């Protein structure tokens, strides 16, 4: 966890640096959230609106009833996966913002793969895993490409992944409006619907689709991978200092491309669920911005795969209650975006507090991954 520059054995062991670190990682984002809420309250008061009403509506809309909770979770499902898609490459020091493209391309691939399988009458039991795997594979290749370009050609991965996103959307549009267009979709070009029998249903007793469960499982699995395995250790070491990692003989190129591929697979899987659980076909609705919201989610979670889950749920709740706020308070849609923006900025500022709040420091300070 700690040894980025120096091996852990070289440091004096004090009681609980890890605990203090965890506490710090909890207190600072929470403080940032509270500060954002206060700032936003000032904004509301200036507009002549009641902050109390606002936050109680966030609660009502996000968690106030079983309907609200399901609404929140349903919206969180893709955000967990796209949050992971940003968080994993971030651990190896890459700022990849192309999850949107991998999601769109993954969803499109799932829909395209489904066409021959569904028309051929192949059972859903076979078809759905094939759709999911191909969506993940295509997502992995897409983001992996950005990683490959980064490592082997020195192309800035932030720019390349963003541009690849536009290409991904264009590729989907090209096929959806042309070769793979369902003739019945006259006014909204779409691929052939996969049909109810091939849809991924909801989790028992809820209206939330299985993408949420997939996100939870992946979040735990990736947390284990990144913190409890040699792969994760090597990846984080590379993220800390590429030269040192190379000097240690770590396969940096492989690690970079692998982390990117994992990220792409997560986003591709989100695309699969959008098609198989939500839309039933691929069309322009796949371009919903989940990939970009995932960046915010991962940032707030400080790139910790486990923390991505509660943060995604918080964003889901904000989205779920946004409509209620519009309807009850007569405020524009942008209100929740203002809150999100404030959270993001305060969060960036709060980054500067790490290692500087005395009571949160263990005896040793300094290096963090």
């Amino acid at each position, binding site marked *: 966890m700690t040894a980025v520059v120096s091996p852990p054995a070289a440091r004096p062991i004090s009681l609980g640096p890890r605990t203090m670190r965890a506490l710090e990682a909890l207190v600072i984002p929470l403080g940032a959230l509270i500060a954002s809420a206060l700032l936003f309250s000032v904004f509301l008061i200036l507009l002549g609106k009641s902050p109390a009403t606002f936050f109680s509506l966030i609660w009502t809309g996000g968690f106030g009833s079983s309907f609200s909770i399901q609404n929140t979770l349903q919206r969180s499902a893709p955000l967990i996966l796209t949050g992971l898609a940003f968080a994993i490459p971030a651990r190896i020091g890459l700022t990849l913002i192309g999850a949107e493209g991998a999601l769109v391309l993954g969803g499109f691939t799932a829909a395209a793969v489904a066409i021959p399988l569904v028309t051929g009458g192949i059972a859903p039991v076979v078809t759905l895993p094939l759709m999911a795997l191909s969506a993940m594979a295509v997502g992995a290749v897409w983001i992996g490409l950005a990683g490959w370009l980064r490592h082997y050609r020195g192309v800035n991965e932030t720019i390349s992944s963003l541009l690849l996103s536009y290409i991904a959307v264009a590729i989907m549009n090209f096929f959806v409006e042309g070769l793979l267009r369902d003739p019945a979709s006259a006014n909204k070009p779409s691929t052939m619907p996969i049909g109810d029998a091939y849809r991924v249903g909801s989790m028992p007793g809820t209206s939330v689709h299985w993408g949420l469960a997939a996100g939870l499982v992946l979040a735990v699995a990736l947390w284990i991978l990144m913190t409890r395995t040699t792969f994760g250790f090597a990846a984080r070491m590379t993220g800390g200092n590429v030269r040192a990692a190379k000097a240690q003989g770590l396969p940096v190129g492989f690690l970079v491309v692998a982390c990117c591929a994992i990220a792409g697979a997560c986003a591709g899987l989100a695309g699969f669920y959008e098609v198989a659980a*939500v839309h039933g076909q691929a069309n322009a609705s796949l371009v919903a911005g989940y990939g970009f919201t995932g960046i915010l989610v991962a940032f707030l979670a400080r790139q910790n795969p486990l923390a991505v889950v509660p943060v995604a749920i918080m964003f889901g709740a904000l989205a779920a209650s946004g409509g209620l706020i519009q309807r009850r308070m007569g405020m524009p849609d942008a209100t929740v975006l203002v809150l999100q923006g404030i959270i993001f900025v305060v969060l960036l500022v709060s980054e500067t507090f790490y290692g500087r709040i005395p009571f949160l420091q263990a005896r040793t300070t300094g290096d963090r991954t």
Partner: protein
Amino acid sequence: MTSMLSRRSLLKAGAAGLAASALPLGFARAQTPIVLGAVYVGPRDDFGWNQAHAVAMDILKQVPGVTVIEEEKVPETDAVAQSMESMINLDGANLVLATSFGYYNPFVVETAKKYPNVQFRHAAPLWNEATDPKNAGSYFCYLNQAHYVNGVAAGLSTTSNKIGFVAAKPIPSVLSNINSVLLGARSVNPAATVQVIFTGEWSMPVREAEAANALIDAGCDVITCHVDGPKVVVETAETRGVKSCGHNASQAPLAPKGFITGAEYKWETIYKIYADALAKGEALPNFIAGGYHNDMLRNSAFGAGASPEAVKAGEAAIEALKAGKPIYVGPLKDNTGKLVIEGSMDNYDPVLDGMNYLLEGVVGSIT
């Protein structure tokens, strides 16, 4: 909160009952409070599609016994299903108006199945009696009739005889609007042509401005459009000093010098039918299609860009459409020379819903 809302509606309904004798509207005697949830895909003040709906909602808000709750910028993803469910569960909505094309399938259909006691109506002719739930339905206006009037007025206001049309996507409803502008213009000015540029997206302001500029550079002196928000197109035409015709809602304030007229929806006619039926406890019609003959369209008031002859001919065209005058009268060829319409088509003929051609006289291609 739900109880508070319905209490407020009840109070309104009670007050309405007292005032019923003084009110001309049938649904003043509301029994059930009507909570009408409206979902928009874009902002309510977009000078376009969403504004046309929101203006109609504003009129409904004045109706006693009707509470209107609105949500804007809801994307065509499962977010719309969530929004509709939230309106039903948290606000007690009993009529949901989903106003964007992509909301229908699967979201309106599936939500309607889940909430059989709530009525859903969707603004596009997509409801299928055989397969779709009975508590869902469609409403739609044939805006091409008002575009025909645009064409008539434009045909008499142009000096270059070239009308520019910025179009979103080459789908039937858009193509019908382009062709109707041409037929309207040709009905008064046989030399008129319509030049079209497709942007490929419903809302792509930069490309819309480029398209408008390109059309003006090509000599068009009247610009009109079919995109979600015609603001950019109309403003571009105005700053370039050419005339413009509007689409969806009134863009007259954007072009004080060059605005001729615009094709506008009159959704309030339909929404009042719904509110009225709900208040009386009657079943809502599942399918309403309208045009000039049943007061579901209007043209924006003629602006400074319209010549006196254009105003006169435009008004005459409106009267003729109200009386059922057909727009598509054959023989008509498309702009590749193929005969596409032989005889005279009724303005509501379903064959026209499958339009996939540009008529001879339209400069442009759909592929």
